[in-house]
C-alpha cells in the first residue's frame, strides 16, 4: 500500500510543476511524467491492459503536444488573469475540494471489493461466467467486445469524429477557392 502513496505523491508534484512553470516545454515534459506515473499506478492496481494502453497513448500525446509548442516563436506568457479573479477561483476550488473529501469518506475503504458486497453485481457474472460464455481468457477483452460491445461502438464513433474534426480544421485552402470570387 505504501507504493500507492509514493506514486501518487510523485504524480501530484509533477502536476504542480506542470501547472505553475512559465515555460511550455517544461510543462509538457511534466505531463509526460504524470502519464508514466499513472501507468505504474495501473500496473500496481492489477490492471495490465490499462498500463500498456496508457504508456503508448502517453507517448503519442507527448508528440502531439510538442508539435504545438516547439515551432512557435513565443513560448511563455507572463502572469495570470487579474488578481481578484484568481482569488475567487482559488477559493471556489478549495471549497469544492473540502466538500469532495467529505463526500469521499462515505465510500467503502480503499481495497475492499465493492462488487462483492452487492448481491446482483454485473461484475460477479462477468467473472464467473465470462470464460464459459465467450471463450476468452482475458476477462477485460470479453467485457469490451462481447458483453458491452455497444460501448466499443460508441468509442469508435467518437474517435472517428474527433479525428475527422482535426483533419478538417487543419485543411489548407487551395488556389481554386481563392480565385473564385474574383
Amino acid at each position, binding site marked *: 500500500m505504501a507504493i500507492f502513496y509514493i506514486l501518487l505523491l510523485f504524480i501530484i508534484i509533477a502536476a504542480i510543476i506542470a501547472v505553475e512553470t512559465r515555460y511550455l516545454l517544461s510543462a509538457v515534459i511534466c505531463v509526460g511524467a504524470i502519464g508514466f506515473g499513472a501507468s505504474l499506478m495501473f500496473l500496481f492496481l492489477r490492471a495490465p491492459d490499462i498500463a500498456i494502453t496508457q504508456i503508448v497513448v502517453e*507517448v503519442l500525446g507527448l*508528440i502531439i503536444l510538442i*508539435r504545438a509548442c516547439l515551432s512557435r516563436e513565443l513560448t511563455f506568457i507572463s502572469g495570470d488573469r487579474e488578481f481578484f479573479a484568481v482569488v475567487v477561483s482559488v477559493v471556489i476550488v478549495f471549497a469544492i475540494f473540502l466538500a469532495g473529501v467529505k463526500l469521499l469518506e462515505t465510500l467503502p475503504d480503499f481495497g475492499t471489493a465493492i462488487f462483492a458486497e452487492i448481491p446482483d453485481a454485473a461484475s460477479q457474472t462477468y467473472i464467473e461466467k465470462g470464460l464459459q460464455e465467450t*471463450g*476468452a481468457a*482475458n476477462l477485460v477483452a470479453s467485457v469490451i467486445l462481447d458483453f458491452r460491445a455497444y460501448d466499443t461502438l460508441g468509442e469508435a464513433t467518437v*474517435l472517428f469524429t474527433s*479525428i475527422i474534426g482535426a483533419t478538417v480544421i487543419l485543411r489548407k*485552402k487551395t488556389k481554386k477557392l481563392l480565385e473564385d470570387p474574383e
Partner: protein
Amino acid sequence: MKGMTVIVKTISSWVKVLIFLFGIYIILFGHLTPGGGFAGGVILASCYVLLMLAFGREFVENNLPLPVASKLDCLGALLFAVVAVCGLLYGAAGFFWNFIHQKYLVGTDYEFNLVSAGTIPLSNIAIGLKVGASLFLVILVLSMFRPDMSGKKEE
C-alpha cells in the same frame, strides 16, 4: 518535417520491424493476454510516427499517402460494423452476438488457443486497424500544416 542523423535512421530502420510485429502480436493475442485492439492499434501508429520523425514526412507520405490512410480507417470501422451485423443475421439474440462461439464452439475444449473466443479476435483486428489508421492520420495532418505568419491566407 526533416529527418534526423544517420545513426537514428539506421537504428530505426532495424527497429521498425520489431515494433510492427509487436503491435500485430498484441492485437492478435488480445483475448488471451493483456492488450487488445486499442493498445495494439496505437503501437502500429507509433511505428509509422517513428519513421516520420526519423526519415522526414515525404518519405512516409510516399509509402502511405493520406487518402490510403483515410480509407484504411473507414475500412476498419466498416469491418467492425459487419461483424456486429453478422451477429444479427445468424442468430436471434441481436446485434454483437458472439455467434461463432455460441453456435459452434460451446462445450468443445477450445479455450486458451489462438483460434478461440468467436468474434472477439475479429473485432480486435477491426478495432486495431481503425485506431492505428486514425492516429497516424492525425499526426500526418498535424505535421503537414505549415502556418502562414504574414497574415494573408496561404495558397
